């Protein structure tokens, strides 16, 4: 079982779009895939038309460590969702009450070992006990990054945080997201950063088709499979699979 997470301290960078599309592609290849929508706002759940509601909320999930009966099937083969819940906004408090409070997610996932090949976590922005749990449990981190100077600084902050916390098992996979080829500043930043930051070679373009996911409420490949954005997600997933294996 491989555990992946889409994470960035910054908000609105394409974390959720990445999770939804990559997890869909992963499931399409026959891997039994689970997404955990960790954002109390429930964007991922929304894209899959699943109520952002988990029986018993964070408390039941974390302290009872029962996850199986909260999972919902998506409309697609091999792809299940552990939905968001509004109570996730208080998850930090519940996590604090546990022993080894930064390793609770790892414990939770251990019971899913036989059921899934891949677990994707879609994280809310910010650094919190929730995100520390994510960083402990995950093996690979997708980091969608908008090509601006400030975004790169945020990425450096994350690198530093990971170093300080000795999260040596984590493999960081930063890539550029919402790239607008017409913006010189984007191209400049990319040119300068690609070597220093060791970003993936695939870039996700800024595209209306990605925005349309909110209207269609489906992964991009369902309604715009031939679009260039859809194809770039396919390339991104191929590149990540290469790295993972």
């Amino acid at each position, binding site marked *: 079982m491989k555990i992946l997470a889409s994470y960035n301290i910054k908000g609105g960078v394409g974390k959720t779009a990445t999770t939804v599309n990559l997890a869909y592609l992963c499931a*399409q*290849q*026959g*891997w*039994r895939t689970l997404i955990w929508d960790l954002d109390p706002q429930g964007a991922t759940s929304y894209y*899959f*038309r*699943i*109520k952002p509601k988990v029986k018993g909320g964070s408390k039941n999930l974390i302290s009872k460590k029962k996850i199986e*009966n*909260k*999972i*919902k*099937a998506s*409309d697609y*083969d*091999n792809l*299940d969702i552990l939905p968001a819940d509004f109570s996730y906004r208080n998850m930090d408090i519940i996590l604090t009450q546990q022993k080894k409070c930064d390793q609770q997610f790892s414990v939770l996932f251990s019971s899913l070992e036989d059921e899934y*090949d891949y677990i994707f976590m879609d994280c809310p922005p910010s650094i919190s006990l929730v995100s520390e749990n994510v960083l402990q449990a995950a093996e690979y981190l997708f980091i969608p990054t908008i090509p601006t100077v400030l975004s790169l600084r945020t990425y450096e902050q994350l690198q530093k945080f990971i170093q300080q916390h000795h999260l040596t098992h984590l493999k960081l996979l930063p890539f550029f997201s919402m790239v607008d080829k017409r913006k010189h500043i984007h191209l400049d930043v990319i040119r300068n950063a690609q070597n220093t930051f060791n970003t993936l070679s695939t870039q996700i373009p800024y595209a209306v088709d990605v925005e349309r996911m909110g209207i269609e*409420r489906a992964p991009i490949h369902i309604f715009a499979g031939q679009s260039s954005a859809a194809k770039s997600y396919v390339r991104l997933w191929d590149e990540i699979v290469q790295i993972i294996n």
Partner: protein
Amino acid sequence: MSTKVDKQLFVMPDNTTEITTLLSDTPIPWQHEEQHTYTVEYYDTFDWRLYVAGLSIELQKQKQGQTFLVCKRIDAITAIYQVPYTQHPDFVWNLPPTWHNLLEPIIKMRKLLPLFSMQAKIELFHFLNKDEKTVARLQKEVRIITKKKKSKLTLKSKEMCALMLLPLRGYENYWLELYQFLHDKGFKNTAKAPLFLDKSLQYLDKKPLDYYSKLNLTIDPSMDAKTATLYILQELLKTMKANEKGTIKNIDSEFLHDFRVAIRRTRSALSQIKGVFADNVVDEFKQKYALLGQWTGATRDMDVYLLKFSAYQQSLPVAIQKDLQPLYSFLEHKQKMEQKALRRLLMSKQYHDIMESWEHFLYSDSNYKEDNALRPITEVANERIWKMYKRVVKEGKGIYDDTPAEALHELRKSCKKLRYLMEFFSSLYDKNKIKALIKVLKVLQENLGDFQDFEVQVYHLRHFATEMREQRAIPVETIMAMGVLVEHLLAGQYQARREFSQRFKEFILIENQTLFRDLFQGAK
């Protein structure tokens, strides 16, 4: 609350019911996905390994659309695995990696072959909640199997139909509601999946397990020795014939393997069931079969090394594993050459003549004047097995820690003869007892087999290294990695030699001796 969903299926004896009318007043709105037509091709190995394990693999080709590879339990409705697929399934290592855990131990080295194909029409009804999320599905599946009428060019076909209510995880309540609805409409339900596969095989007159690689002989105790021996040899000939084509085409390595086992058994039966056929006949065919054994040996060796290769590689320290790779290419090439030679031999007139003379002998009525020919087979079997058993015990007892290797090789051969005899005649004895004794013998054989195999492997690897160097520049690293491998194999052989005395002690435990005596000498 989680609802246990086990009865998913509704019986639909024919294809006349109009589903859309039926669903006009469902409690939950639905969306109709237009009917898809598929060609469904079933796959299994030559010896039905999937079927025996209760599994099926089907390739579902959508007309003008995607192709899916689906793995199911034969009696289940939903797939265990389902992936878009663009090739034809062949070997387990080429299947999607997710499938390996389940299927590797079942299929092993065998190739998946197409069994038959049929048409499928699948109509899906998606039940949707307020958010237009699918919460349950109803699937109507019609399968049409077609066959040619005997001796005519006309086609005949049979239709099978099923209606399945498929639950979605986390939405079982909707399923329950719909289940009740269909039930009230008068649909009978059943927990069992429609056995499309079984019914189709029946319809096509295909018999599952028409080939089974384990020896499965039923000998009537009242038979005389000649009848029983002829029967054994005829069955072995059938096995050879069944594997001939696959061996020539090299479909997978198991054809040649089974082909060779049948050759060895034939030789063993000829020489070990003594006093049944005239000496000159026995000598003639022993020679012919020795020749067949020789012809097939080299290719089998290469097959074995190719199969062992990944284990070889993994036995090395990670840092030098990749150094071994040139050996693989070498083996692969060599296997191809040997296979080519074998193919030529098996298509030669000489081979054809050997088989024809053998078949003629087995099926022609001749006079049997030898001493044992007309004695009851039970007597002859008892005698032969008992004698061979005593020989094994005697040979084994003569082996000490410093006895040279030859003695162990001799013992290994005797054990093999004993094993074949016990297997030929196992139906004459109490099933559990003979099984238990074969198991006891097998443990000893494994030890002797290891001892010999390791030695042969070392010998071969040294030869390979020489050959590889003669052929072209081979990296020093590869030769060194092979050296490490040889060291492991020698250690393995040493280990097997050390374990021998303990294994043999177990083999001749008093209770085992008593069992052997009771079973094969009971009559005396």
